[in-house]
């Protein structure tokens, strides 16, 4: 009972949502609208749960003195600080000049940006150390990468300034993007769409059991 009934509910809701795409009648569109409102609310609770779970996991790690537990204290303290400040601020917590906005602008924002800026360095070292042109395919990939990379920045046209406009690197790059790249990307889009649709079908037939596994 614990597994069959949720699967049936998922299948019915999935089928109903697909139906609501084709049937504008209010008998179908109003319940579908309500289901989406439910999804919005439950997903929001999901994020709150994610935060609470992080709190529990790290409390556990600190309690058991797992390796690197002092850093986990930093994590827990900063999490609680953010929650307490946000709770005190109330509905206007994202207004200009509130303490919550200060923590967002001065802690969350710079670190989130810098975390990904590291990749700029790694991409250069990977280009030097791990970019092997051994086959025709890898050669074509490298050629397209070089044309697009240089053609997309102003220095590309500066280098090929002498050529007529539609032979310059930026024009070639645009032709590559609009034609060969586009054809292959469309084939990938179609393939991916069929993949998502077959997952959708498995949900409707109640064959998609992945979210049930793990606990019984």
């Amino acid at each position: 009972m614990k597994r069959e009934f949720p699967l049936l509910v998922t299948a019915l809701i999935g089928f109903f949502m697909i139906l609501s795409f084709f049937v504008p009648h209010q008998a179908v569109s109003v319940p579908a609208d309500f289901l989406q409102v439910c999804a919005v609310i439950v997903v929001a609770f999901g994020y709150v749960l994610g935060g609470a779970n992080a709190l529990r996991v790290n409390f556990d790690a600190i309690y058991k003195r797992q390796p690197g537990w002092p850093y986990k204290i930093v994590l827990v303290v900063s999490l609680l600080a953010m929650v307490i400040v946000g709770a005190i601020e109330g509905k206007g917590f994202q207004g200009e000049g509130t303490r919550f906005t200060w923590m967002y602008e001065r802690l969350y924002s710079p670190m989130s940006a810098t975390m990904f800026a590291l990749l700029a360095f790694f991409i250069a070292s990977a280009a030097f150390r791990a970019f092997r042109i051994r086959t025709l395919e890898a050669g074509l990939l490298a050629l397209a990468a070089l044309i697009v990379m240089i053609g997309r920045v102003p220095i590309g046209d500066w280098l090929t300034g002498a050529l007529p406009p539609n032979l310059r690197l930026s024009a070639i790059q645009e032709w590559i993007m609009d034609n060969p790249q586009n054809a292959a990307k469309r084939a990938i889009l179609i393939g991916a769409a069929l993949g998502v649709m077959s997952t959708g079908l498995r949900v409707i037939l109640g064959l998609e059991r992945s979210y049930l596994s793990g606990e019984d």
Partner: protein
Amino acid sequence: MSFHPSSDVGVWVAALLTLCIFSFLYKDNPFYKFAEHLFVGVSAGYYIILNFWTVVVPNLWEPLVKSFSAPGGPTAVELGDYRIWLALPGVLGVLLFTRLFGRIGWLSRWSLAVIIGVYAGLKTTGFAQSDLVSQVQASLVPIFTGSFWPSFNAVLFSIGLICSLLFFFFSREHKGALGGASKVGILFLMVSFGAGYGYTVMSRISLLIGRLQFLVEDWLGLR
């Protein structure tokens, strides 16, 4: 070339945290670990508060409470104003928290059932319309349009599309004509991966430019 560092303590905090994370480039060190755990903690706390104040309160709590005093009472439901019915997602949301306690964790399956059902339906129809039907429909283009270049591009596009699709064909061994077509298809795919590589390099580099612009202009005030 004037040099006047910012006086705002917030900018200093942001700059020092930025340098802590950049220190990972030299080698993994306590400063980086501190910044990383601070980041994970702050973002987890931020997600809790954001989703509570911007979704749980305005979309669930307020309409539910208001529905008792609103004209027509809590059961006067109509499109967009679901009043007492909002108790259902509220209960489902709370049921999610049973996952924190192993034994009764299975109750959260009801909430997951709703989410997976809704998104399976939305994604299936969304992908079917815009990534399947519209893409195929847009590929039906006249091959010979009089002038040379558009016709050449149209022919190239159709060949590329058909061969790339055949590359992802698994019901027959890739021999003979099918083998040839899939070899052509992989060439088109490689060009699109090359373009993807070039664009990804641009994205990553601009992230670094943004951070160094912050350090140079906002923090150190080098102008």
